[in-house]
């Protein structure tokens, strides 16, 4: 064991200059080098209680991989992370570490917590660069599982099942695998090359990914099981219909859901010269919401050359976005109007947006989420000039499967009903991620996918016990 690095400050990660990054979509954070990663990993006390692991939705064995990094055993460290985390280069970039692993790190009591996310990103990137991965296709156990949706929940479930020897087919409705990782999160935060390589990694493990395949339309869940021989199905269909506020003018020209705005930019590359997918040429953009999606939309709009204001109904302290995203947005010149809420989108005679009517808010008693509930201040109405309004208010789960699958129970908002292990009301059908919970984080979806994979494995083993013996054992 190396000596512990007792420096209270963590190693910062170099970032692209704000003035430079405002005009391009290049990745903002530039990554650790080997020396920095080792030095940062040595800040881990390897304490007995391992509180960091409790904070990790996929249960990464954090002190173990940090100890390996501290010894310079990067590939071994990668293997440890990869055992419970199918997409380490992704989670290292987009996890809200400050409320998870790092939020519980003992070092955070005095000084900065260990930069767990930064180190995770480093070893995953290094693994990709060196490409010294051993083909890890496990011997097939002869059992087939279908995964619907190739976002974080689906990929995580597929990766876990492939590791256990299952023959996994992932069905993706879009033309590209990755779900929210490709259509939602922008290039400057999560380069699409990283997503492509992570999905390649899963393919190398034997996962088959079929794009342009809409389950619920081309085939039903029942057909997958009865006609195609899948013994279990995992539904990870993710975020669905965007929420709107229900205020006047919301369907005016120039009002977009963040999903639409981000999909045009990220999936369809509308920001590139000569792209066929158009992007609305906005001058002044108002983004409504305070989550990561709102930050992504605001920062994309900045890069497209607009003046951008984020309108959030609570105060800065309640912003649900990752801290780093908020800081980056501010550095890039995104303005924030806290404690105000839109009441109407103002339009011209041609039904095009020209402004956003807002009312100031004050914070009252805490609500069910524990955050103080905002209340409008009477007589505080004001108008924000905006030719483009982007609504980033979360989503309701995708309604397609609920409507087209007989016997699949759904909740009042169309969310698929599933227990902690992902079991739905239908035998052999499991679900997880945003399709079950509504808008949440990448890592929570990955955690749900992983738990469901365990439950699917148990389910198929139990079924197999009652019939023929498993092959490959």
């Amino acid at each position: 064991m190396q000596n512990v690095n007792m420096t209270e400050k963590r190693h910062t990660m170099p970032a692209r200059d704000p003035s430079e990054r405002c005009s391009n979509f290049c990745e903002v954070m530039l990554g650790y080098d080997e020396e920095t990663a080792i030095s940062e990993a040595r800040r881990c006390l390897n304490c007995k209680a391992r509180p960091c692991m409790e904070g990790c939705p996929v249960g990464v064995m954090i002190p173990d991989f940090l100890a390996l990094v501290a010894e310079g055993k990067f590939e071994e460290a990668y293997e440890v992370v990869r055992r419970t985390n199918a997409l380490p280069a992704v989670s290292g970039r987009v996890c809200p570490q400050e409320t998870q692993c790092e939020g519980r790190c003992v070092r955070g009591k005095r000084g900065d917590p260990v930069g767990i996310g930064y180190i995770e990103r480093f070893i995953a990137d290094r693994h990709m660069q060196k490409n010294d991965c051993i083909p890890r296709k496990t011997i097939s156990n002869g059992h087939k599982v279908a995964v619907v949706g190739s976002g974080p929940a689906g990929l995580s479930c597929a990766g876990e099942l492939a590791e256990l020897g299952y023959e996994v087919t992932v069905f993706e409705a879009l033309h590209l695998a990755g779900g929210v990782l490709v259509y939602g999160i922008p290039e400057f935060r999560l380069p699409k090359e990283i997503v492509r390589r992570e999905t390649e990694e899963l393919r190398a493990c034997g996962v088959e990914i079929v794009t342009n395949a809409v389950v619920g339309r081309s085939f039903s869940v029942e057909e997958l099981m009865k006609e195609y021989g899948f013994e279990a199905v995992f539904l990870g269909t993710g975020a669905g219909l965007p929420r709107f506020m229900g205020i006047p003018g919301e369907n005016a020209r120039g009002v977009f859901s963040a999903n639409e705005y981000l999909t045009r930019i990220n999936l369809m590359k509308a920001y590139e010269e000569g792209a066929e997918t158009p992007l609305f040429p906005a001058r002044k953009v108002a983004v409504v919401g305070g989550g990561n999606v709102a930050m992504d939309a605001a920062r994309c709009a900045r890069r497209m050359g607009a003046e951008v204001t984020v309108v959030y109904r609570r105060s800065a302290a309640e912003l649900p976005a990752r801290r780093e995203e908020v800081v980056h947005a501010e550095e890039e010149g995104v303005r924030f109007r806290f404690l105000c809420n839109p009441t109407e989108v103002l339009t011209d005679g041609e039904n095009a947006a020209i402004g956003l009517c807002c009312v100031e808010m004050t914070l009252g008693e805490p609500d069910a989420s524990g955050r103080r509930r905002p209340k409008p201040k009477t007589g505080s109405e004001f108008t924000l000039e905006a030719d483009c309004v982007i609504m980033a208010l979360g989503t309701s789960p995708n309604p397609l499967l609920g409507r087209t699958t007989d016997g699949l129970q759904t909740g009042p908002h169309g969310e698929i009903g599933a227990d902690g292990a992902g079991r739905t009301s239908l035998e052999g059908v499991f679900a997880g991620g945003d399709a079950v919970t509504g808008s949440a984080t990448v890592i929570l979806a990955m955690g749900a996918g992983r738990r469901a994979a365990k439950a699917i494995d148990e389910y198929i083993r139990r079924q197999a016990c009652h019939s023929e013996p498993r092959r490959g054992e």
Partner: protein
Amino acid sequence: MYRILKREQLNASLVRMEIEAPLAARKALAGQFVILRADERGERIPLTIADFDRERGTVSVIFQIVGGATMALAQRREGECVADVVGPLGNPTEVEGLTNVAVIGGGVGCAIAYPVAKRLHAMGARVTAIAGFRTGDLVILQREFAEVADRLILTTDDGSLGEKGNVCVPLNRLLEAGERFDAVFTVGPLPMMKYVAEATRPYRLKTIASMNPIMIDGTGMCGCCRLTVGGEMKFACVDGPDFDAHLIDFGEAMGRLRTYSAFENMARERHCNLFQKEVK
């Protein structure tokens, strides 16, 4: 791969393609659509399924050259492939129990009206097809409609073929003469569908409009295709594309459809310039 088995120029700006897309063909029904991309940089183009052949595993689409993406698609030849076809998307047109229906198409909308007329005809319903175009040169699917319609009325704005005027002229005449349709199905430009809805409203005649708003994913994710129907927000991709025409806010839909018109014009010109350079 999604191979183009047949390509046919229907008129100066309309193209029909029969494309291999087994996943789309196996469940396709009249009223549903596919999303298609010509190449890796291509836009996702939503196109209603004009016809399908389950055994051959093909769907046919008819599209109008509007912007850069449709122009790029139109350049594809028989035997070549397109990058992506996904579908069937949207809900099929509800035709159960209908016995006497007017199917009204305008321009390229006739491509969508035709499979609905065909399905109704196969069910044994009496079909009155009204197909409207700007001028005689643009008329498409005349023979196909004649095969499935008990009565086919062709209209052109300039009177160069069929009856002079828009589709509402014969529709109003039939309604005034006491024709008892169970339903009217209409698809075409938004103003035309609006006029059809206004024509049938006094008769409280069930009128279904097939909406074709701007879309990206087509599976209920982007929210781009939202419409106001009966005062409620609806999404054409998962709630439609068919809606009660008497409840649709057509004015709002027209505004939203214009969101990218400047871009489309630019893209079309850029493509045309590229063409000219190639010719030189």
